[in-house]
C-alpha cells in the first residue's frame, strides 16, 4: 500500500487540517499573544504592554466574581447533575419489583419510557430552554410564582432572577434540568452491562440495595462517571453557561454581577466594551481554569479507582 501514499495523505489531510488550523488553532495562538497587547479590536493598531492586562485582571473585582461563579458551576453542577442522574438510573435499572422466577434485580416497569422522557431537554437548544425558563421565573406573571400563589403561598413570591442572592441558583437549576437526562441514559447503558450475578451474590450475602449501589454499581461505572464529570465541567465553564447567563439574566450578568461567568465576561469585554486584548486575558484565565479542572478530576478519579 505504499504507492502514492504520501500524496494521498497530504491530499486528504490538507482541507480539514487547513480549515482547522485557520479557524481554531491560529485564533487560539493569536489570542494568547493579544493578551500581552493593548489591542482594542476596533482599530488594527496595538502595541505590546507586557503583563499590564494580567495585573489589571487581578485587581478587577468583576473578574474575581466571574471566576468564583465559574468555579462554582464547574464543581457544583457536575456534582448535583451526576448524583441525581446516578440516583435515577439506579432506580430505573435496579429499583424494579422482583418478579417470580425473574432475575434478582430488574428495572422498573416503563424504564424505557423514563429514559425517553428524561432525554427531552437534551435535544433542545440551550437557548430555547433558557428563554422558556426566563418566562417561568418572571416574578409577576411567571409560571412558578403563579403556581405558588395557586397553592396558597402568596407570601412566598421571590424575585428569582431579579434577586442577587437567588439568580445564580436559578440559572444553575436550569442547567441541571437540561442535562440530567443525558447522564441518566449514559449511566443506564453502563448499568445494563453489569452482570446480574454480582447483585445476586451480594443480595444473598445480606447486602442492602444501597450497599450494592456503592460497592458494585458505582465502582464498575466509575470510568463513565469520571469522563461524564469532565465533559459536564467543560460545558459548565463554556458554551452552556454562556447561553443561560446571557439569555436569562438582566444586564446580562445578573443584578449586581451576581450571575456573571468568565465566558460571558470575555464576550462582553471583546464585543461590547471594545477591549479585545483584555478579553483575551480573561480568556487565557478561563483556559487555565478549564485545563486545571480536567487535570484535577482525572487525578482524583484515578486515586479513587485504586481503592476498589
Amino acid at each position, binding site marked *: *500500500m505504499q504507492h502514492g501514499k504520501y500524496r*494521498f*495523505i497530504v491530499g*486528504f*489531510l490538507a482541507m*480539514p*487540517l487547513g*480549515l*482547522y488550523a*485557520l*479557524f*481554531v488553532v491560529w*485564533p*487560539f495562538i*493569536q*489570542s494568547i499573544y*493579544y493578551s500581552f497587547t493593548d489591542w482594542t479590536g476596533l482599530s488594527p493598531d496595538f502595541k505590546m504592554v507586557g503583563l499590564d492586562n494580567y495585573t489589571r485582571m487581578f485587581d478587577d473585582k468583576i473578574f474575581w466574581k466571574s471566576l468564583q461563579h465559574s468555579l462554582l458551576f464547574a464543581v*457544583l453542577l457536575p456534582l448535583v447533575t451526576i448524583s441525581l442522574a446516578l*440516583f*435515577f438510573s439506579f*432506580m430505573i435499572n435496579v*429499583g424494579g*419489583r422482583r418478579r417470580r422466577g425473574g432475575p434478582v434485580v430488574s428495572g*422498573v*416497569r416503563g424504564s424505557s419510557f423514563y429514559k425517553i*422522557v*428524561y*432525554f*427531552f*431537554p437534551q*435535544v433542545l*437548544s440551550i*437557548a430555547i430552554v433558557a*428563554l*422558556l*425558563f426566563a*418566562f417561568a421565573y418572571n416574578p409577576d*406573571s411567571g*409560571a412558578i410564582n403563579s*403556581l405558588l400563589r*395557586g397553592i396558597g403561598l402568596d407570601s412566598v413570591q421571590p424575585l428569582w432572577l431579579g434577586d442577587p442572592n437567588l439568580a445564580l*441558583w436559578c440559572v444553575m437549576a436550569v442547567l441541571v434540568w437540561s442535562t440530567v*437526562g443525558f447522564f441518566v441514559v*449514559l449511566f443506564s447503558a453502563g448499568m445494563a452491562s453489569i452482570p446480574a450475578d454480582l447483585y445476586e451474590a451480594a*443480595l444473598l450475602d*445480606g447486602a*442492602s*440495595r*444501597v450497599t450494592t449501589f456503592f460497592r458494585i454499581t458505582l465502582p464498575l461505572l466509575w470510568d*463513565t462517571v469520571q469522563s461524564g464529570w*469532565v465533559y459536564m465541567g*467543560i460545558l459548565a465553564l463554556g*458554551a452552556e453557561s454562556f447561553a443561560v447567563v446571557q439569555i436569562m439574566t438582566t444586564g446580562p450578568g445578573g443584578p449586581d454581577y451576581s450571575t456573571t461567568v468568565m465566558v460571558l465576561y470575555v*464576550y462582553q469585554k*471583546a*464585543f461590547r466594551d471594545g477591549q479585545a486584548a483584555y478579553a*483575551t486575558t480573561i480568556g487565557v484565565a478561563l*483556559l487555565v481554569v*478549564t*485545563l486545571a479542572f480536567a487535570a484535577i478530576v482525572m487525578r482524583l478519579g484515578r486515586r479513587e479507582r485504586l481503592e476498589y
Partner: protein
Amino acid sequence: MKTTKTPAPLPAESGAPVTEVDGTSAGRSGRKKKEGHVLNAFSHGVLILWAFMVVMPLLWAVMTSFKDDRSIFSSPWSLPDKLHFGNWSRAWTQANMSDYFLNTILVVGGSLIGTLVLGSMAAYVLARFDFPGNRFIYYLFIGGMSFPIMLALVPLFYVVNNMGLLNTIHGLILVYIAYSLPFTVFFLTAFFRTLPTSVAEAAFVDGASHSRTFFQIMLPMAKPGLISVGIFNFLGQWNQYMLPTVLNTDPDKRVLTQGLVQLAVSQGYKGDWSGLFAGLVMAMLPVLAAYIVFQRQVVQGLTAGALK
C-alpha cells in the same frame, strides 16, 4: 415548578437510605421482599416526579402558545379560552420564523455534510496510515475538545471579518465545520480502527487507488459510525448559540436560536408574547418529533462519545 430549584431533590436522595435500613438489620427473605416493595414504590414515585418536572415546562409552553397575550400574564396556568392559531401564523410570517428556519437549514445542512466528509477523510488517514506527525496532528484535533471556544472567538471574529466571511452563510458553515472537527475526528478515528483491514487491502491489490478505496469501500463500511457522529453534530449545530451570536450579527442571516432570543428582546416592546411562545414551540417541536422517531439512534449518537 418550585422543585426545579437545585436543593429540592435532596430530601428524596437522603430518603433512600431510610427505607433501606430495616432491610439490612435482619436480611431474611420476608424483610427482603418488603424492602423490594418499598423500594419499588419509592422509585416509581421519584421517577414519575422527575418525568413530570421535565414534561411540565414543555407542555406549559405549548399551552401558552395558544393563548392570547392578556391571559398569558393574568393566569399563566389556565387553559386557553380558545385555540389562538393566529399566534402561530404571526410568528411564522411577521416574526420572521420562516427566515430563521431557512437560514438554520442552510447552515446546518452545509456544515453537516462538510463535517462528515472532511472529518472522515482526516480520521481515515489518521487511523490507517503511518507517517511522521500522525500522532501530533491527532492530538492537535483532540485538544480542540477541551479548550474554551470563547477564547478563540475573539481573534476569530477578526480573522473571519478580514476574509470577508462575517455575516455570511458560507462563512458560518466553514466555522461550524472547523469547530465540529475535533469530536468528529476523535470518534471516527476510533471507528475506522475497528474496521477490518483485509477488504481495503484486497481492493488495493485489485488496482483501486487510495481515494477510490476510501470512497467506495471504507465509507460504506463506516456507515454506522457516520450516522452516530452525524446525529451528534446535527443536534450540536442545530442548537448552536454561541458561534452565531458572535459571528453572525446581521438580522437577515440569523439562525433559529439567535432569532428567538432576539424576538424575546424585541417582543418586550411590541408585547406580542403569544407570538414568541408560538415561535419557541415551533422551534422545539420538529427536534422533539425527530427525536421520538429516531430515538434509539439519537441516544446512541449522543452518548457514543462519552462511552468511548
